[in-house]
């Protein structure tokens, strides 16, 4: 029971504690001064500036998680997971603050550090930071606007994909939430409109925006171009949106998300690449059923990826396809089990990668890098509301979502492989 008492501390920031301690100290000093009436009147001291009252709607939340991964063969996922000791190279730390100075106005920001193998070295970055103004709020509907850096609304999980407590498993279904397009689809700077209408027939909500994707940095370049080049990527005007339909308070949830993310390439000196452009257009259909003990979730994604005018390589335009079925069962509020089947093909017209592998002799035997079928079973234990332990096992046929940064020699990869992982996570 004692662990439960932590949650009442949820909103108390260190700042709040300092303000409280300081004001208590000042009060006690002045109280003591009142008890000494025999002293001569002191000359009037300059009054201390009044401490501003801490806005009572300031909220501070955070999380910290550490995972361990162990995989078979030479297939590395998030660090050297195929080594004898496995990999501890998966860590997520986040801290966020939000406040509502006016009932219609909210400010929110989150700093995040994510270590996940070679692709994410754990640098601290602004995950989101925006102002949210509710233009209209009535009994059954609302309409508002957000300005700043917002999470890109894609599927059920992209908005909070780096927060372990909000995920159904240690690793999100990699077919849809894999790391290569993560950089493009994580968050973007711009403006979003949002709205909601509630009725007995269910709640419809939407959010839609015009944004610039975050593409600066070597990681984004490696993810988009598959290597380092003298030039750099530049964000172009992009569009993002999602419509949600919740029936009976979320017993049944549907969502359709679509984005068009545009990036251009600015060649550097002596570059083999020309001023090309990349367009990523994901379309995701999501559905969920929530009962008391179990939840069923499925998502289907069609991802169009276009590379144009790079010169050195021919233009590319292909559709990737992925989907998963997931069942979660709550044995008790503390114990939860998960089963999932998750499948991805890089090119819908070449589901087994055979055509792709036949195109060049160097691709012989690498057809398995063009698909992945993952069967996952896992357990979640909520030790307290703040502390969670998880374990899960993946059996995977295909290597499509393995990072080339963690696996520089694609030829060493095994087509069929296993991954075991444990995660501990704390939040407040």
């Amino acid at each position, binding site marked *: 029971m004692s662990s*439960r*008492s932590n*949650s*009442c501390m*949820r*909103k108390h920031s260190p700042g709040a504690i300092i303000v409280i301690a300081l004001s208590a100290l000042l009060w006690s000093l002045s109280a003591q001064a009142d008890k000494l009436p025999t002293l001569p009147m002191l000359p009037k001291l300059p009054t201390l500036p009044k401490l501003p009252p801490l806005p009572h*709607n300031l*909220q501070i*939340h955070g*999380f910290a998680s550490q995972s361990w991964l162990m995989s078979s063969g030479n297939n590395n996922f998030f660090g050297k997971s195929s080594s004898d000791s496995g990999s501890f190279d998966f860590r997520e730390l*986040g801290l*966020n603050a*939000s406040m*509502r100075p006016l*009932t*219609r106005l*909210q400010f*929110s920001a*989150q700093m995040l550090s994510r270590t996940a193998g070679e692709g994410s070295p754990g640098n601290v970055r602004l995950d*989101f930071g*925006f102002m*949210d103004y*509710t233009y209209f*709020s009535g*009994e*059954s509907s*609302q309409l508002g606007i*957000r300005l700043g850096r*917002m*999470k890109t609304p894609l599927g059920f999980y992209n*908005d*909070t994909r780096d*927060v372990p*407590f*909000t995920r159904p498993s240690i690793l999100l279904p990699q077919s849809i939430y894999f790391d290569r397009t993560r950089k493009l689809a994580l968050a973007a700077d711009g403006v979003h409109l*949002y709205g*909601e209408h*509630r009725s*007995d027939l269910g*709640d419809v909500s939407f959010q839609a925006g015009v944004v610039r994707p975050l593409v600066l940095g070597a990681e984004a370049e490696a993810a988009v171009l598959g290597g380092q080049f003298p030039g750099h990527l530049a964000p172009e005007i992009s569009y993002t949106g999602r419509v949600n339909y919740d029936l*009976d*308070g*979320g*017993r049944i949830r549907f969502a359709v998300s679509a984005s068009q993310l545009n990036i251009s390439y600015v060649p550097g000196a002596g570059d083999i690449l020309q001023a090309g452009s990349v367009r990523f257009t994901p379309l995701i259909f999501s559905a969920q059923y*929530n009962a*008391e*003990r*179990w939840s069923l979730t499925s998502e289907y994604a069609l991802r169009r990826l276009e590379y144009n005018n790079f010169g050195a390589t021919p233009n590319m335009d292909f559709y990737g396809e992925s989907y998963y*079925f997931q*069942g979660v*069962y*709550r*044995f*008790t*509020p503390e114990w939860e*089990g998960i*089963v999932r*089947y998750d*499948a991805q093909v890089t090119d819908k017209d070449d589901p087994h990668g055979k055509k792709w592998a036949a195109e060049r002799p160097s691709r012989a035997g690498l057809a398995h890098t063009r698909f992945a079928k993952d069967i996952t079973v896992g357990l979640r234990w909520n030790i307290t*509301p703040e502390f969670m332990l998880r374990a899960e096992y993946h059996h995977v046929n295909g290597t499509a979502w393995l990072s080339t940064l963690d696996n520089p020699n694609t030829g060493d990869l095994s087509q069929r492989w296993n991954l075991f992982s444990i995660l501990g996570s704390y939040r407040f």
Partner: protein
Amino acid sequence: MITKKNTGGFILLLCLLLGINYPISMAWAIEPYEIVTNPSVNEKTLPKSSLRAIFGMRLHTWPDGTAIRVFVMPDDAPLHVAFSKEKLNVFPYQLRSTWDRLVFSGTGQAPDTVMSPEEMLARVANTPGAIGYLTKSKTDGRVNVLEIK
């Protein structure tokens, strides 16, 4: 291939459904309770969809423009479980994941958690615009009772 694997999953789920008694259903047996508000709140009745939106932290203001302040008990408190299921028709885990989505995407805030009925009464009574829930025996004249249409 896919169908076979999923069938396996469903059979497993079905076995679990039949084989395990869920302790949470004990929480249905709870003494009568009310939805309570701070006396500053003018509303005496509210549609269920608005109550859901309030506890889902998506409706932030009363019709007169006052900010709504939501107070809840911990997720596993029997009164919270009963209130969620009977008044909102949702399960506590759904509320928790809704609040987490808001907090960790920045698009909203979490409600305030109180640890006891006494604290619930005191916070709702002393916070303008507050809403919460209390068993009838713990309720007194310092808070208003809200009816759901």
